[in-house]
């Protein structure tokens, strides 16, 4: 969806328009959910709804265009995701690591299954590289916004993205798909 339309939707939502908010939600919720899958694993759904509740609460006070809104949205999502991770670490209900090992790519044909596999592969990266790859490459945020979200310098974000991509390229399942 074009930037202008999303900016209009953002303004409408800030005025209290439910349709504008729905447009925003439809265009951003999948990205938030996938990013949170990488960060918070199985608790991504909860973290995503908490993120949106936070957005609803503070949308009126938000100032900026749609690009700024994306940065704000993913900063909230990251904080919620890390909260979920911390809670999970405290309660020690760690999901089984086998979930993270991707199922065989060849057997995954259904829609969404490939996405799940890809996210699982990315989640297997070190945390900073996984986040950098998700925000920079998958979600398409620019370096400055990503650096703002992660609380790093832009150079560190670039390095983390590059290392993450290099590591993904060296992943056995991807290497096997190279010739396909």
């Amino acid at each position: 969806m074009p930037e202008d339309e999303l900016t209009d939707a953002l303004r409408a939502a800030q005025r209290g328009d439910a349709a504008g908010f729905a447009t925003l939600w439809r265009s951003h919720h999948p990205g938030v959910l996938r990013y949170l899958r990488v960060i918070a694993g199985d608790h991504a759904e909860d973290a995503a709804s908490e993120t949106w509740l936070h957005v609803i609460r503070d949308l009126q006070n938000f100032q900026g265009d749609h690009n700024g809104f994306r940065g704000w949205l993913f900063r909230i999502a990251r904080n919620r995701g890390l909260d979920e991770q911390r809670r999970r670490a405290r309660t020690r209900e760690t999901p089984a690591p086998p979930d993270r090992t991707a199922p065989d790519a060849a057997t995954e044909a259904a829609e969404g299954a490939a996405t799940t596999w890809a996210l699982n592969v990315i989640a297997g990266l070190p945390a900073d590289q996984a986040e950098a790859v998700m925000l920079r490459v998958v979600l398409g945020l620019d370096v400055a916004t990503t650096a703002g979200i992660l609380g790093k310098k832009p150079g560190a974000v670039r390095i983390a993205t590059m290392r993450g991509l290099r590591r993904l390229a060296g992943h056995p399942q991807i290497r096997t798909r190279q010739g396909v």
Partner: protein
Amino acid sequence: MRSLHALLRALRTRRNRHHETDPIATTDHPGLADLLDAARAPATQAELAGEKETVAAFVAHRRRAARSSRRHRTKARIRAVLVPVTAGLALLILTATGVAARTGNLPQGAQQHAHRLFSALGVPAPRTGNPVTPSPAPSRSGPRPTLDVAALGWCQAWSGGPSRTLSREDKRKLSAAAGGEKGIEKYCRDLHRSASAQPSAPTTPPSTSPAPSPSTSVEPLPSVSAEPTGTPQPGRPAQPGRPDQPGRAPTAPPSTKPPKPTHTGKPSTKPSKAASPSKSRGQGTSTKQNSSPSPAVTTPQNAARSVPAEDD
């Protein structure tokens, strides 16, 4: 490995060329491209399942916020009205009090207090009351005579003959005071009457009092006191003169009461103690009761006392 090198080279060149282009182009590696495409795939139905709930939450929050903000706004509006009004009232009261204190029109206690506190600012001490009341009276009566006198002069000039000795302006003033030229005659008549009555008012007390004195209530008072015929007053002074009649006075009051107890005989103790010496002689009928132990005992004591007293 070769592809990885190509990827890195591509990344590097892209970064050198322009900074913020889409990193999608970096994926020369087909497997990596597939992975990223899969990660970027369009949203599935499952991912968009929660739209209704989220939008409902949004609407509910907006309604709540609007309600609270409306409440907040009305409160703010009330405050915006109340604050200046109370401030203005307070200022008005303060100013009025200050002016009243400065001109000395406060009640006496308050004026005294204000004078003690703010005498440096010129707040006068309370007036004793006498100067306050007479001062307006002369000031009111002052201008009226002057106007009346002037009008009287005009009237005399006007009525002295239609010769119009009045100046034009004076005539205009007179007609204005009379409420029209036609009313001048009546006005002048009234004015003459009131002018003749007014000077007489201060002089009346001496002059009128002698004339209506016989009819008014001033004289009856001395006349009544002089004449002894009045019933209420003479009654008291007459009593001292009555002792001249000796027979009635002693007999009437004391005689009526004592005889009754003696006849009955029952209240022996009380009358015997109180009036035993006086009544014992005249009332011989009550001998037995008098000879009862009480007088017998008392008599020797009295005799015993009387004896040393006589000796001394």
